[in-house]
């Protein structure tokens, strides 16, 4: 196999490539702000209720620890009533699974063909080498 001679990249090209990957990172950081499906939601609204430690279902020891941390019942209620919603959207789950599996399949397949080029250049072409050995 002939040795691959790579292109030499200009300074401008190097700068462009460095910036490209950075822009890509920032875009992916900001995309979720537009797609946000935050699973957190305050399920119990407490604003219209009278809040007491008893209504928060807090034991005396828990109440003591909350108070040591500097929280009264109103401040504690905001945290206690903030709950997660773990409802699963099966379509989104399926899409996500497909994306992750597809990504790895794509990467492994392309890597495999690139790796064969690397090995062929490093160790020589296997088929031609074995043919030469047979002829000897």
């Amino acid at each position, binding site marked *: 196999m002939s040795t*691959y001679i*790579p*292109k*030499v*990249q200009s*300074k401008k*090209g*190097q*700068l462009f*490539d*460095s910036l*490209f*990957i*950075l822009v*890509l990172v920032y*875009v*992916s*950081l900001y*995309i*979720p*702000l537009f*797609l946000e499906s935050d*699973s957190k939601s305050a399920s119990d609204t407490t604003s219209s209720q009278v809040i007491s430690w008893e209504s928060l279902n*807090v034991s005396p*020891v*828990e109440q003591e*620890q*909350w108070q*040591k*941390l500097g929280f009264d019942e109103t401040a*504690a209620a905001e*945290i206690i009533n*903030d709950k*997660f919603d*773990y409802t*699963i*959207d099966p379509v*989104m*789950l399926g*899409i*996500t699974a497909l*994306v*992750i599996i597809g*990504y*790895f399949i794509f*990467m*492994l397949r*392309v*890597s*495999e063909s*690139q*790796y*064969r*080029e*690397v*090995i062929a*250049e*490093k*160790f020589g072409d*296997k088929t031609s080498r074995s043919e030469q050995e047979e002829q000897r």
Partner: protein
Amino acid sequence: MSQEASSQSQRISMLKVLNPFHIWALGVGIVLVGEFMGWNFSVAKGGAYGALIACWVIGLLYSCVAMIDSEVTSTVAAAGGQYTQAKHIIGPLMAFNVGLYLVMAYTMLEAADALIVGDLMAAVASATGFHDLSPQPFVVLTISFLAWLNYRGVFMTLTVNFVITLFAFLAILALFIGADPLNPGHILKHSDLLTELPYGWIGVVAALQFGMWYYLGIEGTCQAAEEVRSAGRAIPLGTIGGILTLLVAATLTWYISTGLMPWQYLGQATTPLYDAASIIGNPVLQVVLFIGTMFAAIASANGCINDAARAWFSMGRDRYMPTWFGAIHPRYRTPFRSIIFLIPIAVSFAFTGLLDQVITFSILSGLLGYTFMSINMVKFRKMWPLDVIKRGYIHPFHPIPAYTLLGLCSLVYFATFLGYGASLLSIMAFYIVASIWFVKRRYQFVKRGDQFTMPWPRPKGY
């Protein structure tokens, strides 16, 4: 200029000055901040017991990572760690992706660490009467100072890390002793504060995502492989010693915190161990925990700069990224251009105001890297069986750790989907677009044969 840098890097190599203690300091230093803050978000996701299960399940995941990493790195002793492994075992595109996982995971973790230092300084200022002090200059100062330390040499960088990491670990031990664990009910009130699983088992699965914080980054020990005196000895000793230290620290952290704070508070606390010291009411412990928290964040940022720069440097050296980054400082023997280049990037990540998103990006990049490791290990043993090349360390029970790791990674993807589904998809989109870009554009600059530098025989099946 770039060619000059490339040829220069071939002439000048990094100094081989590190020992197992430095490797321990690098791995534990990056991670230990996760015990001081971050792990506790798993309590919000699944309750106190959910967080404990997450601690152990993710501990198993990282034990697999440490075993696999120790074997492969003790054989592939080169800067870039898992990136270099991927290059030799799977192929260029995988290596490019692994390099990006490493750079993104560490640079974003570094940004979060620097934010913690800034917030702690602002809190101290506020407590001493200087209200409204902006944490931002401290963020810049922390990153710049640590980058300077990294620029000047790896020996000093990791010796500093050893000292401050050891202090932070001892601070956790001091807190444990100060909590009087031999007298349950006196200070620690587990029987009153521990509750049943608030969200059932789905909450436990969701907790796995933040359970990663207990150990995230331990695999960074591999980045120093080119700079240790004996890779076959130092990497396994430092890495496995590190994971054992973290398992102890994580269990103690959970035990102390859940015995002092209601789980709802703990699940959203910014500095849970410092809060624990405050509840105990011992001013000396409070000071020790404050310094410990600060040191843990600085050690983590320091280790992250070290690792991200080496991964970026390695990609530059191999032309996966511009060759300009592949230079080693002629005097200090460090990847100085990569260190400098990543400073403004880390600062900008810290200032995006998207801390949640930045942390998720870091965790997911780590997770993608662990998925790679499981595939990598299976291929490594197939392509070069044990009797073909000498390993510095051979991990037991192969292929059980590799398959266990793959299974646990799948579970954590699901956990991430439960909490940050949109972020997960957007981060995957980043890696997919970057992969296509590599295949279509960057790969033309890569010298094929130069991608295999180990003195190994031809791999089986190729």
